[in-house]
């Protein structure tokens, strides 16, 4: 299982890459394997104010719809438009081309609540 060392993780299987006051968010390799073939992604609207731990996006496989939770609070400032025509990017490249949205963080201290790569690996039993 791929758990990159440069990211932080939510227990609900989202990853966060910090770029200044911006948090880039996607779902983990473990999550995409569990979800199986992704066929539809509903990203949050740009400008939406999201709250840590609250659902803000939906990823759908052939079998089921799964909520994606905001790992941090803030405003959505960008979404990955490519996912609308190529949802399979979440399966193929979850940590790079499959990023989902960017949050302008309102409280950077929330980063401390997220899991380290080692803790996340432990969390998923890897």
């Amino acid at each position: 299982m791929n758990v990159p060392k440069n990211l932080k993780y939510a227990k609900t299987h989202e990853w966060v890459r910090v770029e200044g006051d911006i948090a880039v968010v996607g779902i983990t390799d473990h999550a995409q394997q569990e979800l199986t073939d992704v066929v539809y992604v509903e990203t949050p609207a740009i400008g939406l104010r999201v709250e840590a731990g609250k659902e803000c996006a939906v990823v759908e496989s052939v079998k089921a719809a799964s909520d994606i939770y905001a790992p941090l609070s803030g405003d959505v400032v960008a979404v990955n438009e490519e996912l609308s025509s190529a949802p399979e990017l979440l399966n193929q490249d979850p940590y790079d081309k499959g990023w989902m949205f960017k949050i302008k963080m309102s409280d950077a201290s929330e980063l401390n609540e997220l899991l380290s790569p080692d803790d996340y690996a432990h969390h998923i039993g890897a």
Partner: protein
Amino acid sequence: MHSAETLKRTPLYASHLECGGKMVPFGGWEMPVQYSGILAEHAAVRERVGLFDISHMGEFLVAGPSAERTLNSLLTNDVTKLAIGQAQYTLMCNEGGGVVDDLIVYRLEPTVYLVIVNAGNIEKDFEWMNNKATVSAVIENQSDRYAALALQGPAASKLFDFSAALPHFHIQRHTVFGKECWVARTGYTGEDGFELFCEAADAPHLWRMLLAKGKEFGIQPCGLGARDTLRLEMCYPLHGNDLTEETTPLEAGLGKFVSFDKGAFVGSNVLAEQKAKGVDRKLVAFTMTEKSPPPRPRYPILANGRKVGEITSGTQSPTLGIGVGMGYVETATAAVGTPIEIEIRGKKFPAIIQKKPILKKGS
């Protein structure tokens, strides 16, 4: 529902783990939902060949001089039309005409019938048949004795030398890789294919040999996920979703499997009345006409902004790449070509009622 401890496992449980099967609960059984992925497995069956474990399905033997009369009193279709070795799709109804189960009956011998029922309904059906049978026939639940495998896809017939001698919707006794099986030319995918019923202990050997022999044709082990998308593209109903004890075969558009001239059967009065008066709702097929999230069971179906029904089965069609589904709608809005909308998480997405099956062969 069922806790993990009470889930039953088929004789192929270890084979599934070996093949990388992702196991999930289904109808009281622990079954593979997928191996490599639903899309790949679906494509394998449409284009080449796929192998499914269907051992969770129930097998009943109905035998004796009154077997034919017994089945005709319990089931909607006319079993007397079956030649030896022939198969028939049929339904079992309650007194109100609701569907207790849908099943396949095979006439194995002059007075011996093999009845295949849905996994989640085995105990219920067995009890029902024994309680409702008005004439005495031997009804045996052989579900634990038999395992079953489905080999489906355009290349399936290349795996057996008897394929040319086994017509569609027929069953024969064959020795397959050294094991005695009942082999039927039936399935639940819309492709050519076979269903093999064997002794439970022989199943792992057959599974392994079929995968080995099928390798040159690109065979793929397939799970319940692909089984569901394949059957839904063909609009084959799934009991528990599209057929329930509250819906009738006529509402489901399965009138051609109901015989009104064979004499009384459980539910026949209500069904005859419904046939004369017409049904208030119909099970229709639909496709989304724009990009949308996949339609799913229980999403509302709207016509002219008003709710006219609910989805009973829905998915993203792997073959067509769009959302497809089935659901019951008011008869007035059930005509092919009627524009409808599907409400998904509070948003409305356009769809259109389609002629069944959704997947037209050659499309």
